[in-house]
């Protein structure tokens, strides 16, 4: 009987302390940083047009495309990868068909210009980044559709490359959503 009192007392007090007080305390700190606490949303005319770190689906030839996604960039369903194993024939088929699609929409481009991440799906299905080469190879297509200068587009990409912190921590990458926002801005000038 005494043990039962001990245990139930400890149970409910830890529920309140760690299930309730702890997250509410962090939430309270979040109120001081409203943008971060909401996942760094990008706003336009009072609407959220995306999140800085969350990938968005691009299929229009006038935009830079991101990586293949197992969830088709559905940010409200079950995120994750394809989970296809390395020797699964379905993986090779998927990779080949992604490669064919990219070559079809980028006729001026060779296979040897297309980097690995553009034909493999990400771990979250919401990967916001591609490698710099993943953006560069799309330049001829976008220049053609938008009637822009290819060199200017390359400069735009270079300006949007995110470098590893202190040259050590991280990879060289380009945020596709931010690049496309910069692209729209540049094109409207």
């Amino acid at each position, binding site marked *: 009987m005494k*043990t039962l*009192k*001990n*245990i139930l007392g400890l*149970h409910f*007090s*830890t*529920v309140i*302390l*760690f299930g*309730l007080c*702890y*997250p509410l*305390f*962090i*939430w309270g700190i*979040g109120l001081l*940083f409203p943008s*971060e*606490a*909401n996942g760094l949303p990008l706003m*336009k005319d009072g*609407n*959220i*047009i*995306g*999140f800085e*770190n969350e990938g968005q*689906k691009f*299929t229009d030839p006038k*935009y830079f495309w991101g990586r293949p996604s197992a969830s088709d960039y559905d*940010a*409200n369903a*079950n*995120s*994750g*990868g394809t*989970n*296809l*194993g*390395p*020797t*699964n024939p379905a*993986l090779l088929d998927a990779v080949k068909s992604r490669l064919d699609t990219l070559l079809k929409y980028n006729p001026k481009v060779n296979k040897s210009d*297309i*980097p*690995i*991440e553009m034909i*493999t*799906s*990400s771990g*979250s299905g*919401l*990967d916001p*980044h591609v490698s710099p080469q993943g953006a560069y190879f799309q330049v001829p297509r976008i220049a053609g559709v938008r009637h822009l200068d290819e060199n200017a587009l390359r400069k735009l990409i270079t300006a949007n490359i995110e470098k590893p*912190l202190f040259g*050590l*921590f*991280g*990879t060289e990458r380009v945020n596709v959503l931010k690049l496309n926002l910069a692209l729209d801005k540049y094109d409207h000038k």
Partner: protein
Amino acid sequence: MNNEIIGVIITFLLTVLIAIPLGKYMSKIFKDEKVFTDFFAPIERFIFRISRINPDEPMDWKQNMKAMVLLNLVFFFWALILLLIQQWHFWNPAHIGNMEPTLAFNTAASFVSNTNLQHYSGETGASYFSQLLIMVFLQYVSAATGIAALALLFKGLVQKQTSNLGNFYNLFLKTCTRILLPVSTVIAILLLLNGCPVTFNGPQDVHTLEGKIIKAATGPVAPMIAIKQLGTNGGGFFGANSAHPFESPNYITNMIEVISELIIAIGLVFAFGYYSGKKKLAYTIFGAMAFVFITFVSLNIKWETGGNPVINKLGIYQSNTSNMEGKEVRFGAPASSYFSIVTTSTSCGAVNSAHDSFMPLSGGLIITDMMINAIFGGVGVGFLNFFVFLIIAVFISGLMVGRTPEFLGKKIEAREVKIAILVALLHPLLILAGTGISSFLAAHNPDTGWFTNPGYHGFSEMLYEFSSASANNGSEFAGLSANVPFWNIFDGLIMLFSRFLPIIGPVAIAGFIAQKKYIPESAGTLKTEGMTFGIVLLGVVIIIAALSFFPALALGPIAEHFLL
């Protein structure tokens, strides 16, 4: 690529640098010494008063283990019942329904046992209420259960001729308030500042650049990610776990998360040194663990950055040929490899990439890591598992040189060795019997629909699932469709067995050792520290853990490798 490997090395060094002072701090907590967090004392006293607990009451190993089991039983039913009535929760803006009973059983067992195997996906399967008052709560108390049990063992090893192992309630609560709460608060704030959301607003409407309106899941993410990493729980807020941009927005958050996973596990090894005054033994243990760990990390990075030859032969851009299927660009292959070994070494089970899509050998290595389950290991329980190997190593090396096996001045006798062997064999038994039964079922019912991947890899998926459940890891080869009654119930039972028996066994051994007479060290004492003993220790780990699994590994990952 080279800078990414240096990034990994610095991450590990930082981890050890943080773990050493943390270990010293934890040993002070276990000894009830003065520490700078004594301002929590009034809260603890209040909780003890309303629970009628006398935190200074001496308890023997049986009383302590009874308290531990009963407390966890209450946690289990709390989770089970609340998950079954999820649709009526407040804080449920996405209107998520009740969990199906076998899924609720699996989830309750999973979070109570510090496993956090998830057969649901957070976006569609858990209310905010569940995420906080069930998952976050259990991530705290399950981690504290393991650490408190280890503190009992520490005490048992240094006690002389007494049955007193300390007070579980006291160690449990202090672990929560003094270790887990302050550190995870710091981690949660760091994650928040990097864009890990904390909001109760529910899914948000997003007006995309291409003119569609979609919904994006958010939630009180940051507090959960902090404790899921620190407590080696691993259960994420979203399906993709730490690959999801809201769980780990950038490389720095990835570093913070991977460091948090390891600091307590490594810290406890050093805490043992400070607690017992046997620093050299602690270095020996750390050395043996680090040797296996670094070997695994190096191999995994080599195989993952080497990439998939089948894809690389297609003639694509050749400057990066890593295996990027299931990985995120912001982390890259080396940091993903490192994360995968950390998460399976520590029984954390958080993932920042899809393990199912790793190369066959690196996938096999991850499974092996869970089969050993004592390289740093889960918080508290990792060292308990390693202690079992330690007892066996002392016994075997004692026999080899013809001396009575002794450890820290206490004789190791038949009873202790029997318990150690039974605990050590439980893990292979559960994994291999489980994989055997499920393989039989799969072979006789070709249309189970369990597998995303055919052939050897499908077998690896089952082997992974059981290794993960039995190691209380919680990561998955997620191609296995495990949310069916068979897996929910079977995994759930395995998680409970492999959680509580390997805690009770070593604590019982400590209870017996505490009652023994202390024999001062002499020239005839077998030295349990230094290089020689370290090698024997590694030998025992490899023989028991790795070799008993070799045939199963040969049928799965190794066979698959030869298909490439």
